[in-house]
Every structure is written in C-alpha cells, then in structure tokens.
C-alpha cells in the first residue's frame, strides 16, 4: 500500500502501549514543562515563523512613536507621492506618510484583534463551558443560541451590529466579538463535554471530589491547549474582520488604521498602488503570523496529528 504519502498510522501496526516510553517522545507536557514546551516550539517550523513575525509586529506596535517617521495623522508632504527616500511607502490622498500609518495601524490592529479575541474567549468560554459541564436543558438552550449566531455570516453579523449601533472604536470591538464568540463557545463546549465523560474525571467523582476541584484540576488543564490554538486562529480572524469593516468605510474615521487606508486606496487604484499594497501586506502578515502560530501550537499539543501547514517539522 503506497497510496498515502506520509501519514501512515504505524501505531496501529505495532502498538507499543505497554512499553515504557522514553522521555523524548512527544506527548503532553511533562517534567520541566516550560522547558519542554519551548523545545517543541522550536522544533515546529510553522510555530517559530509565526512567533517571530508576531513578536516583530508587537515590537513595532509598541515602539511606534520611536520608529515612525511621522505622526499617524500628520500631513507629511504632498498627497499621492510614490515611494521615495523621504516617504518609503509613499503618501496617501491627503498627504499622510503611508509608512507611519502602517506602523501606527499595527497598534490598532493588534489591540483590537486581541481585545475582541479575548472578549470572545471570555463569552464563548463561559457559554460553552457551562453548556458542556451542566448538560441537560441548559446545554440544549445555550448551544442552540450559539448555533443561531452562526447562521448569520460572521461578516454580515458584524456589519449589522455596526449598522444598528454605530462604528466607534469600542463598538467595533463589540461587533467583532459578537461575530466570533460562537467559535470559541463551540470549541470549549466540545472539550468540556468530551472531558466530562472521560474516565479520569469519573474517577475523581467517585472519589468524592467537589465540582470546583474537578473543573480546576481535571477538566481545565486538559481543555486549555485546543482552546489556545483556537484563540490564536481567531485573533487573526478578528484582525481580518476589523480591517474589513475599515475597508468598507465603517471603521473609526479618526483612527489611522490599515482598513481605513485600504478604504481610501479603493479610489486611487489606478494612480497610487502603494496605498493598497503596503497596508494589505501588513494585514496579510499579521493573519499569517497568527495562523502559523496556531499551527505550531497545534503541533505541540497534538503531536500525533502533526500536519504542519509548512510541511513537516524539523
């Protein structure tokens, strides 16, 4: 059988369940957990690339006032100038320095992306976690509601919220949160529900452990890794959604963001390519970074389905 390329389940052919495993084999974290985690992170090509790019982006965002040549909304020169030595990425239609806007835009993108992803995790985690652990009618109701939110496409839902409530910066965060929390809810729900019926949780119940202890010691530590992976992917999605709203002209008009720049660029596609290319590149980079990081984390936590997006590890 040579049909399958790389992923033959050799475990089935020779299960060595009963052989003591050496310390180097992958699996859940163990002795010297942080150390081990880092070692495996370093072995993951996707993960490392993602991590490095992300750290770079965060550094740029934090150091924006120091490295940016101009203030984000400062009129730095004549409008629509092509990239040159004085304006590395050119200027936009009102004469702002594109490079400066891109640098400051990283602040808004990361801040809003992480904020919405975090809020979504909070809401989704609570709903999914309660539904998964409680079961019964509570489970049915909560998960049906979650499903409802997923019927309206994420982007449309975000737009709807903006249409009704307006587009201030913090309302945009709320809109994106409302759009992506069901994703988190589902993953947390799936994890908690599966873990609840696992034998080791049942054993804890038989021993008389209180609910709080079962949640804290047995369920959460095991549910966390896949949730972290999902949050990493959703942070990218949040940035994308937020930039999309900006591109549609529904972002905060006063904040210098990537989306806003891309919105402006739409009218100058025939004359000023730099207005679109550079901010777009920044968005793509941020999303790729989160998605690669997610892949890397997935490789770390689920070594057995190691299928990194950038080929194999190591």
């Amino acid at each position: 059988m040579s049909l399958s390329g790389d992923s033959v389940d050799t475990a089935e052919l020779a299960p060595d369940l009963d052989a003591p495993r050496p310390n180097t084999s992958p699996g859940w974290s163990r002795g010297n957990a942080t150390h081990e985690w880092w070692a495996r992170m370093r072995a993951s090509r996707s993960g490392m690339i993602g991590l490095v790019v992300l750290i770079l982006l965060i550094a740029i965002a934090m150091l924006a006032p120091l490295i940016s040549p101009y203030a984000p909304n400062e009129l730095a020169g004549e409008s629509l100038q092509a990239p040159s030595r004085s304006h590395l990425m050119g200027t936009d239609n009102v004469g702002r320095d594109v490079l400066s806007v891109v640098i400051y835009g990283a602040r808004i993108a990361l801040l809003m992306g992480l904020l919405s992803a975090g809020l979504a995790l909070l809401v989704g985690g609570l709903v999914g976690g309660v539904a998964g652990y409680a079961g019964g009618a509570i489970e049915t109701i909560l998960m049906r509601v979650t499903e409802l939110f997923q019927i309206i496409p994420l982007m449309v839902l975000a737009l709807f919220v903006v249409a009704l409530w307006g587009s201030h910066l913090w309302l945009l965060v709320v809109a994106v949160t409302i759009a992506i929390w069901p994703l988190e809810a589902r993953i947390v729900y799936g994890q908690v529900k599966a873990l609840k019926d696992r034998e080791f949780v049942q054993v804890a119940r038989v021993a008389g452990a209180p609910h709080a202890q079962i949640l804290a010691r047995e369920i959460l530590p095991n549910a966390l890794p896949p949730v972290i992976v999902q949050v990493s992917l959703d942070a990218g999605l949040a940035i994308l959604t937020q930039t999309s709203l900006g591109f549609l002209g529904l972002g905060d008009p006063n904040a210098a963001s990537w989306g806003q720049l891309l919105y402006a660029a739409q009218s100058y596609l025939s004359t000023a390519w730099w207005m679109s290319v550079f901010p777009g590149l920044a968005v793509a980079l941020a999303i790729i970074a989160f998605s690669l990081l997610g892949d890397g984390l997935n490789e770390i936590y689920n070594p057995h389905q190691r299928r990194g997006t950038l080929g194999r590890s190591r």
Partner: protein
Amino acid sequence: MLWFVARRVAQAVPMLLSVILLIFVLMQFTPGDPVQAMVGQYPVPQSFRDSLTAEYHLNAPVWTQYWYFLVNLAHGNMGYSYASHESVTSLIAERLPNTLLLAGSGYIVGIVLGGVVGLITATTKRRGFDTLMQTGVVTAYAIPSFWLGQLLVMLFAVHLGWFPTQGMAPVDSNATGIYWFLERLSYLILPMLTYAVYEGARVTRLTRVSVIDTLNQGYIVTARMKGLSRWQTVRSHVIRNSSLPVVTALGYSFAVAMGGSVLIETVFSWPGIGLLLVDSIKQRDNQVVIGLVVVIAVAVIVMNLLVDMAHALLDPRIRA
C-alpha cells in the same frame, strides 16, 4: 429518504423563526427609539413614524411586536427604503441574481480547483509539490479577499488593461450574441477569480486532510488486498468517502462566502446584495439592512438544508 427530507425541512422552520428573533432582539438593544432603529438616521416626518408604529405595533408589548415583525416578513413585506423609496423586497430581488451569478460561479470554480489540487497533493508522493501547494494555500487563506481584489484590479485592469476595473457591464453597450457574452464575462472574471482563490484554498485544505484520512482507513487496505489498482482504489473508495467532510464544511463555508461577497462586491462595484448592504449601512437605510440580513440568513439555512441532503445521499449511515 423522503422522510429524512421532510424531517429536515420541518426542522428548518423553528431555526428560521429563531434567527429572525435574534435579529429582532439585536434591534431591541439599539439605542434610541425603535422607529429610528428601523429607518436609520433620516429625519422622518411624524406621519411616517405613526404609520411605522402602527404597522409594526411598536407601542405593543415586545412579543406582539415580534409577531407583527414576523407577519410582515411572511407577507414578503420588508418595508420601504427611505433612501430610494422602493420596497425593500423589490430592491433585493433586483440585486440577488447578480450576487448569485458572482458567488455561484466563483464557488463552483473554487470547489473544482480545490478538489483537484487537494486530491493530488494528498495522493502524490512528491513532498516538494505538496509543500509548495500547502504554502500557497496558507498564503491564499491569509490574504484578505478585498486586498486580493485590489491587487488584481491594479495588475490586470489598470496595469495590463485586460479586464474592466469595475461594474458588471458597460453603461452603454450594443454588443449582441457571443460578443455580449464575452463582454459580460470580461467583467465577471476578476471578481470571480477573487472568490475562487479564496474558496479554492479552503477546499484544497479540506480535501487534502480528508483524503489523507480516508487513505488511512482499513477499507483501503482491504481494497488493495482485493487487487484493485491505485487508481481503481481512489476512484471507487477514496473520492466518495473523502468528499463527505468536504461537503459538510461547504455548508459552513457558504455562510463565509456570503460574508465575503460584501467585500468583493465593494471592490469591484458589483451591483449585488453585498454592495447594497454596505451602501444601506452607510446611508443608515436600516429597513434595507434588516431585510438583507434576513434574506442572507434564509439563504444560509436553505444551503445547510441542501448540504444535509447531499450528505445523506453520499452516506447511507445518515439516512433512514
């Protein structure tokens, strides 16, 4: 099978009612008074206010309001656009075919391309090709669709001049027959390609994982034992089985595509419902926005229904 369809359709109804309820609830949380939420920020005359209040029973308790909201929807009455003074239903009906044309063609091209590429990457042994495709997929996946659209416009429309930049047809066209068709096609190609790249990347990824998963199943070993050749095995055991999860995922991806059409239609000024949605939001024409959200939700529910049926056709375990 018939029973299956009937049950599934019967289940879609409460789902639909609940989604409308969700939309209704979100509207209830809108700051300001309900009339303003419905019409947006137009200065409306008192007479219009009164007629809306009467039509939607805005002074009645919330449940009664929901009931009349539903009744109005059921009659195909989604109110009037304050901007264009047309009925929302006819506005949407006018735009919907354009969206279906664009999204449908992009969807089909993407699925076919993605399916083929996914199958090849999963079965091929050349690691380099696989890695290349995978990297391509990640990149395609991460590029915002509207930005990709802008890039395509700049390269193929502005720089090379091969295709028109925007719109769906020239303002004054007297082309007929095959020329008419080609003219329309030239407008369609770039937005369709944008769709297809995005959809194709998703389908490639799904197909690859699913095919690899199928190849690891025991019945593939059985097929080889029976003496089927590689191609026979793929044809008779891999394609159908590995398409199951792909079909399921397509249901979800349709919703994403509907969201994406808002962006792509904006880039290319394609006169579909996505563009209508954005324009209406900008003009605070909320009656139209509400109508569009309802229509899109219905489309997604119908699509899910179709996907479930396709799934049942493909997998005998689900029927009965």
